[in-house]
């Protein structure tokens, strides 16, 4: 339809621009929240956002890195793409860490960056950066819009690619003349045409049969459950399958919550700081069934010693993950939920499998070598702090963490019994992730209790977003596990670098309570266990943001541990008998 036909109707309003069209398309995609920061090259888009008030919510962050981590937190909780808008040049390059983080952890994002006008691209114009080249290796796909007419197709494809198959970030670079351009024609409805992108959802029944066959013969089967189970929303199926056939379950760091930690079949987290039982189960198993985990090196340890006696079945929606690190005898490409449904069907007639001996053996490991730490009556143990938070939140809070020691303690001691409660930066290990990710999570789940468990180091990388928390009155509970150090770095220096503590102690720190107060946020400083127990109910009863600076014992280390280069069976710091 030509726009002339509408002219009469539109005389009182400004003509529709590419940016207006973009906002319309976003609303059509069901986008409710934009995580953004304005700038020169996106001014036309911000004009359109101004005009679209009431139709779509824009949240102004204080740094592009903060906002993209918030979008990741939002995506992790909703399963829908987090939508980010940043300007060209520095706006775009500030997103790079978050985009890479989302790529590594398979989080759906659609990122819109402004770009200088098409006519000056390539001339080193003001705030120009080659965003396409920069983001090619860190996105699932990226686009530069060359004409307004392409916008509907590109936006539709971007959302489709980001949220289907193995999710990931998609970037759309929009030159200023495109967003400011006047729409001469109402664009037609578009269909997605992506002949090079057809993710396999339904697994090959032949491979499923092969797995069932192996399972019926296995004496020591174990399930490894990763974040693919979350994306497929397959926790219930996984739990039913494991329980029916009495198969013990190890979760990855990102897979925490996919299987209830309080189930007798749960062995906890595997990997570098996993439980002894989980790692020994992987080591001794004769059939390892991996649902949606990518055999990351922090999980496997030295590959030479990884599951040496096991036949490996790997269910993954991304064929490139199968056989990448670990030789796989039963490759199953497909969605974890589809695979589990087929497996449940296929094993329906099977007598419930008994692995009593194997389960008892693993139970003994659980009893003999549980997670442990030494209580210190004079200070606050970080592990104890996590347990206290678990208790006060009934184990049902959404927990976002940063990266480092506190992250591992949270993973070890906040026993997740439900999926979609755990937000952490796994693959990239991005400090500064946790606090803004908690903001996105709270926006996605306004009624839920959201706890940001952060270190004193990482928090200082993105704490400027306290403004957003105050502005929006997001009742996030920010728990700083403050040991005055970059704890994990210090731990490695102590254990692996001859105790040479190089640049990992934070000698001066802000007064976090005053800092919070300067953002009009209530703050507490707590340095002993009694005070924490006394204060926690009050803190968690408040329907407003609270920052709690918890001074924990500085020397505490994360154990048990698989030192780099070692195998799963070579854990150190296991509870002594």
């Amino acid at each position, binding site marked *: 339809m030509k726009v002339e036909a509408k002219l009469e109707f539109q005389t009182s309003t400004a003509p529709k621009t590419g940016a207006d069209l973009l906002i319309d398309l976003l609303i059509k995609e069901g986008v409710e929240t934009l995580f953004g920061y304005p700038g020169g090259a996106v001014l036309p888009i911000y004009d359109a956002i101004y005009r679209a008030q009431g139709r779509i919510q824009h949240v102004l962050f204080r740094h592009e890195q903060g906002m993209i981590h918030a979008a990741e937190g939002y995506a992790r909780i909703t399963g829908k793409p987090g939508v980010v808008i940043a300007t060209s040049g520095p706006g775009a390059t500030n997103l790079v860490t978050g985009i890479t983080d989302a790529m590594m952890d398979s989080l759906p994002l659609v990122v819109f960056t402004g770009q200088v006008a098409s006519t000056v691209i390539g001339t080193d114009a003001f705030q120009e950066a080659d965003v*396409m*080249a920069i983001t*090619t*290796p860190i996105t*699932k*796909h*990226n686009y*530069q819009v060359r004409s307004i007419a392409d916008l509907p197709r590109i936006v539709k494809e971007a959302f489709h*690619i980001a949220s289907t198959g193995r999710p990931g970030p998609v970037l759309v670079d929009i030159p200023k003349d495109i967003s400011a351009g006047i729409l001469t024609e109402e664009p037609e409805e578009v269909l997605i045409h*992506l*002949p*090079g*992108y057809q993710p396999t959802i339904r697994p*090959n029944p*032949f*491979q499923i049969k092969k797995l069932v066959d192996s399972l019926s013969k296995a004496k020591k089967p174990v399930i490894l459950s990763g974040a693919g189970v979350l994306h497929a929303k397959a926790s219930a199926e996984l739990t039913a399958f494991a329980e029916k056939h009495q198969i013990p379950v190890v979760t990855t760091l990102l897979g925490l919550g996919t299987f209830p930690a309080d189930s007798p079949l749960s062995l906890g987290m595997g990997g570098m700081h996993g439980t002894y039982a989980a790692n020994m189960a992987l080591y001794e198993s004769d059939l390892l069934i991996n649902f949606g985990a990518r055999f990351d090196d922090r999980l496997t340890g030295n590959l030479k010693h990884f599951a040496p006696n096991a036949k490996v079945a790997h269910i993954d929606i*991304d*064929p*490139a993950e*199968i*056989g*990448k690190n670990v*030789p796989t005898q039963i*490759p199953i*490409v497909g969605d974890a939920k589809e695979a589990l449904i087929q497996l449940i069907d296929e094993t329906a007639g099977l007598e419930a499998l008994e692995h009593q001996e194997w389960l008892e053996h693993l139970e003994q490991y659980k009893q003999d070598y549980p997670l442990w730490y030494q209580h210190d009556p004079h200070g606050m143990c970080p592990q104890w702090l996590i347990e206290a938070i678990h208790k006060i939140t009934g184990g049902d809070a959404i927990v976002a963490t940063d990266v480092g020691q506190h992250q591992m303690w949270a993973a070890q001691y906040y026993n997740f019994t439900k999926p979609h409660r755990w937000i952490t930066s796994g693959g990239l290990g991005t400090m500064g992730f946790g606090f803004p990710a908690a903001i996105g999570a709270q926006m996605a789940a306004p009624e839920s209790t959201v706890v940001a468990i952060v270190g004193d180091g990482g928090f200082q990388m993105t704490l400027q977003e306290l403004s957003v928390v105050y502005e929006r009155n997001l009742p996030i509970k920010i728990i700083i596990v403050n040991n005055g150090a970059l704890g994990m770095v210090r731990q490695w220096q102590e254990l692996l670098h001859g105790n040479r503590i190089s640049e990992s102690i934070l000698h001066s720190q802000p007064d976090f309570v005053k800092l919070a107060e300067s953002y009009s946020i209530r703050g507490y400083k707590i340095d002993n266990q009694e005070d924490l127990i006394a204060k926690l109910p009050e803190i968690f009863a408040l329907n407003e943001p609270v920052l709690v600076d918890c001074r924990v014992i500085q020397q505490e280390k994360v154990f048990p541990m698989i030192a780099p280069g070692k195998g799963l069976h070579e854990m150190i710091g296991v509870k002594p008998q």
Partner: protein
Amino acid sequence: MKRIITLTVQDRSGVLNRVTGLLQRRQFNIESISVGPTETEGVSKMTLVVEVGDGQRLEQVTKQLNKQIDVLKVSDITDKAIVVRELALIKVASSSQLRTEIHGIIDPFRADIIDVSKDSLAVQITGRPEKIDALIELLRPFGIKEIARTGLTAFLRGYQPQVNEFTAYSLSK
């Protein structure tokens, strides 16, 4: 081991960058690469010659390439019945007295002289890379001033003999 991998890709900006970037990131050496349009509008074909350590690495790179949205198809055609060609331009130092002698050398290679100047001439040759290498060696004594090679391009022959050793890198194997 050296492998010939062909890719059909959508002819969109950045696709070459995407492919070469991916190979670089996963640490594969590209020996040659040639790109051009195909019989279908909007679809291009790339022929890559890459040095790959082992079958597992080869499978990984094939899958990673396949994952790219703009990549339609990836085939390792090294072990198939294929037609392989490369074109080279070779500038040889040559006085008028030597021309006949050079003619005699290049004739069996079915190469042509496509440019002549006072002290040099340009030879054009097409064929398998080994044939081009052989001619270059024969011309070297005359003094080679410049070489430009297109890199190899290839596709499957019309008839594929049935072989037991079928090297397909599929998951069903």
